[in-house]
């Protein structure tokens, strides 16, 4: 009984995690501006990490792989927002304005 309950719970978590990943991917393509795309990428990334790893940890039970999954989840939770901060800061430092409509590789923010 408990096994079937855990199985169904982990199915649900994994499916939700997969849906989050897809939503993030589609958002990265359809949103208009760089700063809005960062939102799509990082928020869905973190949520998907939590859901998918929780689902897998329920399947593995209490063992060494569960500890490894916990470690990977913690590192992804820590490093994901840091990378987002670093990227947004780099863009702002180089002069990309948050309301820019069309930009190219050769903008004055980063002329080679």
């Amino acid at each position, binding site marked *: 009984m408990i096994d079937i309950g855990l199985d169904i719970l982990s199915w649900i978590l994994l499916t939700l995690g997969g849906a989050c990943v897809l939503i993030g991917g589609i958002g990265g393509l359809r949103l208009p501006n760089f700063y809005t795309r960062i939102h799509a990428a990082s928020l869905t990334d973190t949520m998907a990490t939590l859901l998918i790893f929780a689902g897998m940890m329920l399947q593995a039970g209490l063992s060494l792989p569960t500890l490894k999954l916990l470690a990977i989840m913690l590192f992804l939770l820590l490093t994901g927002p840091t990378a987002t901060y670093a990227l947004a800061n*780099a863009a702002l430092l180089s002069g990309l304005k948050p309301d820019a409509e069309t930009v190219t590789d050769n903008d004055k923010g980063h002329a080679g």
Partner: protein
Amino acid sequence: MYILVSIAILVTMVLALVRALLGPSVYDRVLAVNVFGTKTVLLLSVMAFLNGRPDFLDLALAYALINMVGILAVLVFFQSRSSIKERAESD
């Protein structure tokens, strides 16, 4: 069910690759590389479980740590370039 999640992650990797190829500015491409990196970690973990080989989780752990170092290197690169330009303009 692992196969469904793997397919979802692979589709997102394709979408991120499209953004890396299309992205009008340089930062879009770096964002796409970052997304690609974290999706690779997810894909490696899910497939390690799918094939019943939990010792392959070491790869996902290594890559989760290394991904951040690459993006921080990009930040240092842009910062040093903008400070060099400021120094050149103020001379």
